[in-house]
């Protein structure tokens, strides 16, 4: 059974860790919704907050292809990093998988995808966690073509 890379932001919905939902917090006073947990509203400081499940799909606000990764990055290099705007308001940064460079386009629709990632911890032990990513919403043919 996989655990979430960040249980406060990604709630897994099956034991295999292949399905899940991003968690946000909405202010009941000003209606602003943020990604992740909150005790006070970032916009108006109210403490009348409610957890919300964020949409599975969003729009690609911007993207980059990271050629020199940060330390601790466990994935392939280069990787695509997407800044995705969700209908509820928050923008969520994560790797974009299952597409080619030529497919990337600002405004394209993407959806949440979970991947098991092997993480090395400080003491040399390895754990596998479910990490949230984005993948383009496109036809099955196009996805198969894009897969390595």
């Amino acid at each position, binding site marked *: 059974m996989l655990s979430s*890379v960040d249980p406060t932001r990604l709630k897994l919905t099956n034991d295999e860790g292949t399905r899940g939902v991003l968690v946000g917090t909405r202010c009941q006073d000003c209606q602003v919704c943020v990604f992740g947990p909150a005790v006070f509203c970032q916009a108006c400081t109210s403490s009348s907050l409610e957890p919300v499940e964020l949409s599975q799909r969003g729009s690609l606000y911007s993207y980059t*292809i*990271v050629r020199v990764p*940060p330390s601790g990055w466990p994935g392939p290099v280069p990787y695509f990093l997407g800044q995705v705007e969700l209908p509820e308001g928050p*923008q969520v*940064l994560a790797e974009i998988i299952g597409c080619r460079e030529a497919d990337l386009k600002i405004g394209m629709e993407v959806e949440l995808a979970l991947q098991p990632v092997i993480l090395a911890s400080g003491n040399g032990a390895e754990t596998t966690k479910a990490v949230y990513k984005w993948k383009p919403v496109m036809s099955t043919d196009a996805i198969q073509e894009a897969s390595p």
Partner: protein
Amino acid sequence: MTQFRSGREVSVAGVGLHPFGRFRDKDLAGLALPPVTEALNDAGVAWKDIPVAYFGHVYYHGMSVGETALGKLGLTGIPIINVENACSSGSTAFWQAYWGIATGIFDLALAFGAEKVPSGPVTVTAEDSPERYIGADHMMAGYALRMRRYMEDHGATATALAQVSVKARQNASLNPYAHRKETVSLEEVLNSRLIADPLTLYQCCPTSEGAAAAVLCASDALDRYAIDRQRTVKIAAAVLRSGNYNGRGSDHSAFSPYRTEPAALEAYEMSGLGPEDIDLAQVHDAATIGELQQIESLHLVPFGQAWEATQEGRTALTGDIPVNTDGGLLAMGHPFGASGIRMIHETVTQLRGEAGPRQVAGAKVGLAQCSGAGDVTTVHIFTK
């Protein structure tokens, strides 16, 4: 805005700068001290007269490095405060020094900063944070995201972005303190290796080592310390802000591109000056896109038009609003704790008319803007 804003007038009395680059044989205190003694000598102030000091730095080099460095000048027992405020640590130290005097607590203050930034991509979060595994914590990737969106929104060309670096290197070729003193062509900037598309290596500031210092004095106390009024520069505004809610959630790399605007407006209000009064500006150009969005946030050029202003040469030394006259972060390099005070050093040098081959003719009003993670921003305005 509840900031106290009617304090005593404060002037910069002296400045000092260590060259920026790599200095493997010096520790942080060893880097920090030479500009301090230079700034004291520049002001003509004795160390024993300094009643308070603020030291900006970010990376850990043991505790109380400010005390270690200044202790070599003599243990005078004054309060020494070590300041960490990301890339704005130096300018935050300066801001604290300013307010220490403006509020009437001190007549003099020392602000200094130093840094030895490790090589490689700069990250914000702790080593084991989930953001590292998610791939979202990468300072230059954050700039790349902003750059691609800016190009899409405003039709900015890759060539216009690259021109920011070409201009920075031209200015730095006239500055012996710069980390990167060699000029580069547009082609060299565009063809340097990609870090995070569309940002190429020469559009990212080098990670560097360096140090800078400034001595501040209440304007009404300049005569008491026999400071030469001909060489002092008045501080017309000193503003520090953290982020407002920006609608972008909490990922560190998705920082707000125009977060400087509220600080700029506050600085203009405090100084009674407007963007039209600014003769030259030092801004936070950690990447080329940074400079464009900063000068737009400062209202020096209209939103979405900084790339055209750059292409037209308006931000060059010979333009109507010269920006990053010493080479900026792109060519000076970026030792976090020092950069904010380095910008003030350049502004003071220009307003004194002592910038030599890169002197902006007739400069009377200068602005220094520095950003940091946490949506920190500082804006200082200086007048001669």
